[in-house]
């Protein structure tokens, strides 16, 4: 087994475990100043919601099975008990209704955080999100806005059934008026979610479910924001820049460590914010290394990798020592789990791709 596969295996076991057994209700300590918890990414999301709901009465959560059930991934665990059925609301099974309702709630002065159970089930609500929420500001000449957050687990690798492994962030990035973020660590998860909730515009908060429980990290109990629109350099390097986000950050880092042994020094940039993109960080990194790859789960054609490659050649062509290589999902539907590890970028593919770029 490759080290990535091992990492995955751990995740998935944890995942399966936590899904099959009754969830524990996490206790909130009374005094939360200056304290930190060791949290998984999904716990950090839950904590981010908790913290923000505690501080701002306008914040509410709504979606399918997020109440008593705490969400199918337990991302809203114990919030129902804490904040009651009017602030943590199980809705009917209707995604357009959930997002349309959220827009209206936002207009009334609330700060709704909607959960879509899986990205593959967002599409019935696509119109309300992409064609409605995105435009409330522009069509009203900024008199109105849609201060909503739409959270959804996305991505593959967890042996899920059909339609449960979507990674179509590119759809949302192409629509003006939407912001799109995705964390790759528990710390970022809480900070980005806090910023998303406070943002006056609609923010799509993509949750890399493959790493929901992959590892723990210290997360402050108090609230903090990570500014939307800022990438994070996860590993500095001088030979080649790896641009990635969400669950692909880890295999990218694994690949970088393996390549270090071959003397290739990778810089790994976790974009975090997919819309707006942090073009400065992307271009600066590329200008430093002169070589780049983009790693994402979505189909290659029309994926966000295209935007990044196009931007780099626009802004930094004269620094280009090799084509920017896109290591993505293939232009096919993500297969069921017997084959999904062939579909998703594995550390081995990432390494191989980086070698290509180095040897160009």
């Amino acid at each position: 087994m490759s080290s990535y596969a091992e990492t995955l295996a751990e995740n998935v076991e944890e995942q399966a475990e936590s899904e099959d057994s009754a969830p524990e209700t996490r206790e909130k300590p009374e005094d939360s100043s200056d304290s930190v918890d060791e949290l998984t990414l999904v716990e950090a999301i839950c904590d981010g919601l908790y913290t923000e709901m505690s501080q701002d009465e306008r914040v509410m959560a709504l979606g399918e099975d997020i109440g008593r059930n705490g969400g199918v991934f337990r991302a809203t665990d114990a919030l129902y008990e804490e904040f009651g059925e009017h602030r943590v609301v199980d809705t009917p099974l209707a995604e357009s209704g959930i997002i349309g309702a959220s827009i209206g709630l936002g207009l009334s002065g609330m700060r709704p955080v909607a959960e879509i159970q899986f990205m593959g089930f967002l599409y019935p609500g696509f119109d309300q999100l992409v064609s409605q929420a995105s435009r409330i500001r522009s069509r009203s000449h900024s008199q109105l806005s849609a201060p909503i957050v739409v959270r959804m687990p996305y991505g593959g690798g967890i042996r899920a059934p059909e339609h449960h492994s979507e990674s179509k962030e590119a759809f949302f990035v192409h629509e003006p008026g939407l912001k799109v973020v995705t964390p790759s660590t528990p710390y970022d998860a809480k900070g980005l979610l806090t910023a998303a909730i406070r943002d006056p515009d609609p923010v799509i908060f993509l949750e890399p479910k493959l790493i929901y429980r992959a590892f723990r990290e210290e997360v402050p109990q108090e609230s903090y924001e990570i500014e939307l629109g800022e990438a994070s350099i996860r590993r500095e390097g001088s030979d080649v820049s790896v641009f990635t986000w969400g669950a692909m950050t880890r295999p990218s880092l694994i690949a970088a460590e393996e390549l270090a042994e071959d003397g290739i020094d990778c810089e790994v940039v976790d974009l975090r914010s997919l819309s707006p993109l942090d073009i400065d960080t992307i271009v600066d990194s590329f200008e430093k290394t002169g070589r780049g790859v983009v790693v994402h789960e979505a189909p290659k054609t029309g994926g966000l990798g295209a935007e990044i490659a196009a931007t780099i050649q626009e802004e930094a062509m004269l620094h280009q020592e090799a084509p920017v290589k896109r290591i993505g999902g293939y232009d096919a539907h993500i297969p069921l789990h017997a084959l999904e590890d062939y579909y998703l970028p594995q550390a081995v593919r990432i390494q191989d791709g980086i070698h290509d770029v180095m040897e160009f």
Partner: protein
Amino acid sequence: MIHAQSGLHEQDEHDRLQILDADGNVHPHATVPDLSDEEMLAMYEALVLARQFDQRAISLQRQGRIATYAPMTGQEGSQVATSYALDEQDWLFPTYRDHAAKHVHGRSLSSLLAPLRGHREGYAIPDDVNVMPEYIPIATQIPQAMGMAWGYKLQEQNDRAVLCHFGDGATSEGDFHEGINFAGVFDVPAVFVCNNNQWAISTPRERQTKSETLASKADAYGVDSIRVDGLDPLAVYQATRAAIRKAKDPGPGESRPTLIESIQYRFGAHTTSDDPSVYRPEDEPEYYRKRDPVDRLRGYLESEDILTDERQAAIDSRVEDRIEAAIDEAESLEADPDDIFNHVYDEMSDRLKTQRDELRELREKYGDDAFSEVLE
């Protein structure tokens, strides 16, 4: 000839609330809503204005002074009445056809014309006006209106209700279903007004759904409903007022939301780009023209001596002046290309700034004529 039948479908009037008969006489057992003479006259003036506005807008379109326009003649009675039934703090969710409803609830006439002149400024809402920009994608406003009503309920702003307009065609969309189902489940203070003008462009009501009535669709959501003669402004007022009251302060066993099916008829074309003679018999509107909401209210007000010739003359001239002023105002609007970029996000992204600056440079370099507006 499925199509040709359609207008007749709704001509049995016994199943709906009516106060005025076709000639404006009060039905024997009906009660006229409790409105002062001044209120009645104001409502009537709004009707006259709406009718006049509609005709002017159609001719402005013909002259190329505004873009495609959706006429409301025949439907303005219901529009004016629903907005009259609102309290100031209530919100209105209108469609592209609800010009009169918007105006009565506070939008200026010139703001109605501005988008038709290509200016999104017309959708900018003054702080004290609770009217959403019009909704063009059919039925999308329904879950949103529901959501706003829910939000007010959650915030215990119990004196607020939300009124949402849509057409007969809208009842086929998933958003109608999802929105009203949520309204039932969360018991929100919303009034849904289905303006059943019997046509969705060229599709007649009975090809839209095999449901007996549109009002009865509310049963599927446990939501109350009522059918009302949408060409009778007093009946529409009464039904809407009752629904708004109930939304804010439901009695024991009452639920907050209501679906009102307001049965109307579109006297004219769907829009100025549409030619109804292609799909409906020329004489279909006749029946409804005899029940013209403006005539009916005028008939009633005259019979009650509330409306005199003098007052009518004053109304006509005020209406004329206001419309002229509105057209002047709308035609004096200038567009600022920077606005393309100004309202995408609360804070402009770097890429948008670059794009804005690029366009500024191009305009500088080549002049605005190089981008000159077509047909203007």
